């Protein structure tokens, strides 16, 4: 099963810090997650970069990027510091 690592901003609504899923691709996984979120929180899914095993989906096959067991999907936001 692929793992969606839940960003802290979504943890309260999802009630867990990881979502395990048999979704075949990123789009299906997102659809599963979206169903469990309020409209307000759903918007966050559009604002963060989706990464599969550290790689942006826009450098893979976008939302059609297939997911294999053990793949990790993260949703991250611009960050900086040092």
């Amino acid at each position: 099963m692929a793992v969606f690592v839940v960003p802290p901003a979504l943890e309260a609504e999802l009630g867990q810090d990881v979502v395990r899923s048999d979704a075949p691709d990123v789009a299906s996984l997102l659809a599963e997650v979206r169903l469990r979120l309020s409209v307000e929180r759903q918007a966050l899914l559009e604002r963060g970069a989706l990464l599969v095993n550290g790689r942006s989906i826009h450098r893979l096959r976008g939302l059609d990027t297939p997911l294999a067991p053990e793949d990790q999907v993260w949703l991250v936001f611009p960050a900086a510091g040092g």
Partner: protein
Amino acid sequence: MTGGNMGRLLFVDLGTGLIEERPSDPQDVELYLGGRGLAARLLYDLTPAGLDPFDERMPLIFSAGPLTGTNAPQSNRFVVTTKSPLTGAIGDSHCGGSFATQLKRAGFDAVVIRGRSPRPVFLEITDEGCALRDASHLWGQTTSETQRALPAGFGMAVIGPAGENRVRYAAIVSQRRVAGRCGTGAVMGSKNLKAVIAKGKKSIPIADPEGFKRLQQEITQMLLSHPMTGGVLKDLGTANLVMTTAGRNIIPTRNFRAGQDLNTPRLSGEKMRDELLLRPDGCVSCPIRCGRHLKYDGAEHKGPEFETIGLLGNNLGLFDLKTVAELGERCDDLGLDTISCGNTLGFAAELCERGMADWGLRFGDAEGLGAAIERIAAREGFGDELAEGTRRLAAKFGGQDFAIQVKGLELPAYDPRGCVGQGLEYATSNRGGCHIRGSTMYLEATGPVSIDPHSRRAKPPLVVLQQNTNAAVSSLCMCYFSAYAMIPPAIFRMNPNGFLYRSLMGILDRAGPVLKRVVTGGNPLQIVWFEKFLSTVTGKRFSMGDLNRIGERVFCLERLYNLREGLSGADDALPRRLLQESLAPGTGGVPLDPMLREYYAIRGWDERGVPTEKTVRRLGIRA
């Protein structure tokens, strides 16, 4: 006197007790500004080649910049420069707090300290006089104890037991801020100098006070309204990076054997804010306030910075924020660099795991790792070995391939296999494995734009541009964090998974030739606030191109210093683990060699990494 500068340097000989003021060289100020640049010039000129960092003749230089004390946002930093006992290369370490402002108000742009005192002393600098005072009663004290015992109302720079014991990555602490890198605290300890304190009331000359005031208000507002400097950094501190670096698979994990752990989110900035934050904290004149004050278990604590979380937490398999905060605070109190310390502990734990050492260190063992920190600072037992840093440890016990350092300086918390331009930046950094010499990872992996982080395309000119800009900004002694606001807010509003964003990134991926033109050509415009502030303060017009040329000059001078001290192009390297081991399917190591060749060519260095005579002449460097 040039606006912004006090025009005076303080020279102190701890051996003879002689303290004298000298005028600064106006030409050096024009060529190198102050801070990092001016100190590099002084270090080069004041030391014979090959001088040991612990030789009593080795200078320890505290320098401020032309904007320091003016109240320009994020300008109140100081730089400590010497030859690093950890790397043998130029070592400079940067710090916020109030010390820099007080040094300028006392009337000095820099303090050059040489010699070795026969007994522990501290140096007191004021606008009414300077003196060496007995510090015997402070020797052995932690940095917080020392600061509490010193006279109130001064800006302070102090060492702890680690500096006294010459731990090669000992830090200098100022209030709750730390000049952590390169072991400058060990050189201070070798001089029997426990602290430097400064206080003054002089005003800093500003050529165009009205223009400066308008710019100050405008830029402060801009920083406060920008989504990064006024949003993310303010809200979450530097720990905002935890989730993003983990998602990008680049946060050090078990001595850089992985790029994240499913427990990593437990260390996030959001967790720190929601569960532990008491209030944010910041340096003088900084509107961002990225520091954190935590409260838990009935007491106040300093919140760990991202690097501390990365190296002392995630890298060591420690996923409890309070534990990491306490280890970080203990390092600060003992006067240890949390990056080098955490990295060294990770390396030592892997040595133990592989049976190459028997110190009993284990990933995830908070108690054992905490006890090791105490031993390092005291140089007690195996702590004496670990106090030497990863490169020397590897030379003695093996494991060079997974000693994660460059030029002897331990890498911070961005694994370059997921941001290969950052790998080139690490390899070519004059002070060794440092992330803040250009912060290329911001434009590859962590920020709102992402120039293909796994591709070498466009990276050499990007790294040169970033390094030159950073050298100039740190010669101004401005905080590099403000540079994160250079990316327009509109970019932050784009959907990073959408067509428009993908198209923009495609263009940036191919921006190498344009970036190369930017680096090698001049830019007569004033575009961002760094050159505008410098112009209003000094009364001389600086363009963005002028500032980048100054940065290039500083970077090249540092390179010349390193070459003089015996370093070479062979030191522009990464450990084998980062070159050859993959972190995830479809990715590889850092393609360093081809990037390095292009990088040298852009800089006007030969194939061995030596600046050509033409380049040195073009930059007006007196070598």
